[in-house]
Each structure stands twice: as C-alpha cells, then as structure tokens.
C-alpha cells in the first residue's frame, strides 16, 4: 500500500516536471502563433464589430451602434440571396466541370508519347494566366460578337453571332474558370494516376475486367482522395473569384457573386461598411457551418465504410 502511494506521488512529480519542461520548450514558438492569430483574427473581429453598426462614408456619418439591424436586413435582402446562390452555383459548376475535364486530360496524358513535356506545358499555361487578362482575352477574343473565335466558328456553320459575355454572363465566366482550373485538376489527378500501382491494374486485367470496368471499379475509387483534394483547393479559390467577373460582365445579370456583391456595397462604391460587414459575417458563419457539418457527415460516411 505504502509503496503504491509513494509511486503515485512520484509519478505526479515527474508529470509536473515534464509539463514545465514542455512549456519551456514551446516558448519560442508562441510569437509565431500569436502573430498568426492576431493577423488573421483581428480584421475578422473588426468586421464583426462593424457589422453591428451603421456606418456610411457617403454621405459621411459617424459610426453608430444599431444592433442586429444589418443582419435582419441581410436575411431579407433578395439581392444578397441571389448573390449567394450565384456564388454556390458558379463555384460548384466550375469545380465539377474542371474535375471532369481534368480527369479526362489526365487519363490522356498518363502515357509515354512524343511531345509529352510540350503538351503538359501548353495545358498548364492557362492556370498561370492573370485573371484580369484571362477574362479580357475570353471576352474580346473568344466570346466577342465581332472578333470572337467562337462566333467565327458559329458563322462558318451559318449561325448568327452571339455576344456571349452579355447574353450568358454567368456561364461565360464559368467557361473561363474551367479553362483556368482544368489544368490544376489535371495535375492533381495525374499524380493520382501515376501513384496507382501498375500491378493492381494488371490484377484487374487477369481478373477479367474490361478497360471500362477497370476505370470505374478500380481506378476511380483510387482517385477519390485526389479528386477530393482538387475539389477542396479549387473551391477555396473559386469561391473568391472577383477579377474575372469585374472585367467580363461587371456583375451583369446572374453573375454577381458574394465577393462582388460585398464589394459593390463597400469599397466598390456603396461605402456602407456596416451592412457589407454583416453580409460577410453571414457568409463566413454559413460556410463554417456547412464545412464542419459537411465534413462530419463525409468523414462519418468514410469511417463507417472503413469499419464495415
């Protein structure tokens, strides 16, 4: 009995010492952590504060605490709901289309052939083009009624010119985004294809799988985590799309997404910082809820599958 007691006190002592030691060792890391938290959270907290105020620059007026009025406005604002819808649709369609096309291109590239490096370079290039330029090039050289390649092709088959960017603003933008993001998805998925053990494919061949069955039953499940990563990274960037829209449609019908909407209401001319902040906070909270909920469900499903 006595021995046990002394053992446990000794254990406690050791634990306390270890704790102290650990604290001393992590000390040098605190500044970086603190800086990160401050730099990333302070603007957010400031926005949170602004969102409860009425604050307009033109006409200039003092900042005034108005409680949740901005939020009730946000939830009833039809244009905001439209912008949120546009954000969701644009992001989803661009991500899905670039993943599908990227997978196709990756499958085509996953072989040895003459001119491989050259082809890869050509395909990747759109990903590196500055958004403003990408938007302008497509608007002026692809979609334009006068000098657009698409319309030139249409004219050749006897169809009249269409000013795509103003007739289909949302889908024109999605087109450009897909052009820029397919290469990125291709890179990730190609890595997935090259990471697949060749003997698994051979085993499927010996087991009697046709190329089609091999792709859908063996390769695609293997690619799933790669596709998920592509979707995640693509969504992070595509939800913030702004430059393309400004130069292509300026927010024409159906192409105003949340960033553009918030911008229009704040630094883009509206100067109603209070309500703009409230819109943003709503979006952040919605995203966090969606993301955590979605991730829970998703990982729950995955774990269930693992355990089954």
């Amino acid at each position, binding site marked *: 009995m006595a021995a046990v007691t002394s053992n446990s006190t000794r254990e406690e002592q050791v634990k306390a010492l270890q704790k102290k030691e650990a604290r001393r060792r992590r000390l040098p*890391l605190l500044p970086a*952590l603190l800086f990160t*938290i401050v730099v990333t959270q302070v603007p957010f907290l400031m926005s949170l504060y602004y969102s409860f105020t009425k604050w307009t620059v033109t006409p200039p007026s003092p900042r005034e605490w108005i409680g949740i009025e901005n939020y009730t406005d946000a939830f009833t604002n039809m244009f905001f709901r439209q912008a949120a819808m546009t954000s969701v649709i644009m992001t989803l369609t661009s991500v899905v289309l670039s993943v599908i096309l990227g997978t196709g291109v990756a499958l085509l590239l996953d072989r040895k052939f003459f001119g491989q490096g050259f082809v890869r370079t050509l395909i990747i290039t759109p990903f590196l083009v500055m958004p403003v330029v990408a938007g302008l090039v497509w608007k002026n*050289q692809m979609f334009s009624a006068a000098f657009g390649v698409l319309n030139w092709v249409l004219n050749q088959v006897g169809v009249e010119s269409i000013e795509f960017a103003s007739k289909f603003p949302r889908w024109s933008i999605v087109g450009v985004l897909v052009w820029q993001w397919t290469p990125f998805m291709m890179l990730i998925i190609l*890595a997935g294809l090259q990471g697949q053990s060749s003997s698994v494919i051979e085993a499927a061949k010996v087991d009697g799988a046709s190329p089609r069955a091999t792709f859908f039953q063996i390769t695609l499940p293997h690619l799933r985590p790669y596709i998920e990563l592509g979707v995640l990274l693509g969504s992070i960037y595509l939800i913030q799309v702004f430059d393309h829209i400004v130069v292509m449609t300026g927010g024409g019908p159906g192409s105003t997404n949340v960033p553009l909407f918030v911008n229009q209401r704040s630094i883009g001319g509206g100067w109603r910082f209070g309500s703009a902040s409230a819109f943003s906070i709503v979006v952040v909270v919605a995203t966090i809820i969606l993301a955590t909920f979605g991730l829970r469900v998703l990982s729950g499903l995955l774990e269930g599958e693992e355990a089954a």
Partner: protein
Amino acid sequence: MASTQFPGTRGVGKAIYRVLSGIPTGALWFVVVIWSIPTFGLAVNSFRGRDDQRNSGWWTVFSDEGGTSLDNYETVLTASSTNSILESLANSFAIAIPATIIPIAIAAFAAYGFAWIDFKGREWAFIATVSLLAVPLQVALIPLLQLYSGGAHLTLPLMDKTLTLIPDFGLAGTTTAVWLTHTGFGLPFAIFLLHNYISGLPKDVFESARIDGADHFTIFWRIVLPLSVPVLAAFAIFQFLWTWNDFLIANTMIGAQRTEQPTTIAIANLAGDYGRNEHLLAAGAFVQAFFPLVVFFSLQRYFVRGLLAGSVKG
C-alpha cells in the same frame, strides 16, 4: 471474347489496334489545340498593330496582309512612365516577394506548433485560423483600409478619451500595404497546407531528435524545414501566382497611385483609358506572365507532391 484489346494481335487485329491506340494521342492533341486557342490568340495579337487589332480577329493574320511587328513590346517596355510596364514590374516584385516569403516563414512555424505542440485550445485556434479561408477578402479589406489610413483608435465611452492602439504608419497607397494584406490573407491557407504536411511527418523523427537533445526550435530548423521543402514550394507557387496576378487588393490599396502600381493594374488600365492603349494589352500580358511561368516551371516538380502529401495517403 474480344481479344483485339490485347496488344499482340496479328494482321488485321494489329492494324485495328494501331488505329485504336492512336485515338488517345489524337484526342489529346485536339484538347491541347482547343485549350491553347485563347493563349495563342493573345500571342498573335501581341504582335499586331493597333488598327489591325481593332478591325479584325487575330486569325486573319494568316490570310490577310496585316503585318506583325515587335512594336507593341517595344512600346510596353520602353514608353514613358505613364504606361511603363517595367516600372510596374518592380512594384509587382516588391509586393509578391515579401508576400510569398513572409507567410511561409510564419506559417511553417505556426503549423509546426499546431501539429506537434500540445497546448490548451489548440484545436479551436487551428479551426478559427483555417476557417478564415472562407472569409470574402472584401470583409477584411475594410478594416485593413482603416488601419492603413489612420491607425487604430479606441474611443472610450463616457470618458471622451481616444486611445491610439496602432499609430498611423502612412501605409495608405503603398506597396507595403499590399504585401501586408496578402501576408494576412495568405496565412490561413499556408497554415492549412503546411499543417497537413507537417502533421504527416513521421513521429519517430521528432522523438529521435529529442533524444538527441534537440529542443523545438532546433527540431523546427534542422528537421521540419528541410523535410517540408515540397510543401513550402507548393505554397510558394500558389501564393506567388495569387499575389503576382492579384488585381483586387492592389487596386483597393493603391488605386490610382501610378508610382506604386503593380503590373496587374497597369495592364488593366491599358484596357481602360477609353481603349487608347488597348492594343498593348496582349504584349503587356505576356511580359507580365513571364515570371509566374518561370516560378511555376522551376518549382513544378514539388508542386503536386507538396499539395498531395498529408492530404492523400500514398
């Protein structure tokens, strides 16, 4: 059963196989051509004069007499300060380089902290940091503009006294304001990406280093950083592309201050100005795109590896 798929087929089968195996390559070249049309058109236009560009599509260069020249490039690179790309290139570097390197330095340290140091509230701090990925930039731009143009002041209620929390550093309209902003916005993504990677490093390496007597600081510098080169490079590519190609933040922070403008604004202005200089846009875009191409293709072997490690179990 269909034995034609087997690459040993003789005679007719072999001929069919050869045709079939040619399809992917053909399809690939087709995709490549389609994908390159916009870039190619831009390239062609960068060599065409103003009137040509205004009056016809770029493909007419192959049928018409409309000549090509290097004039646009010459103008873009040498013309007076009102539209010199060269000057704005310097500004772009002044923004993109610190905005790439500083977040990496901070985020690597913080990611290591989040991944390998136990402290209270670690998970919450991590989630709070990473969830800021979803914040529309515009939200944070408002408070930041406030900070840069006047510092931060807190007026205490009832006492009629104003405290200056952060003085006015006169950052408004400078490249410093732009890269500071990019640094802040880059951090959540950097931490997210680096944390994925660093938390996936093998635990025994750290334990063996600790047995060898290394503290966290040494472990970080001697082990974590060298092992993390791929993910650091991957983030560097992302962040460099983002900051170099960014229009929104630069335009918000710098706007019309010509001497501080990066290339993106200079080029966008070419399209503006009532189209006076629009014919220079293509050439300017190519000059501007040269550097991201160099950065990407020199680091590309790390790019995918860095993104994948930690998120996808090989």
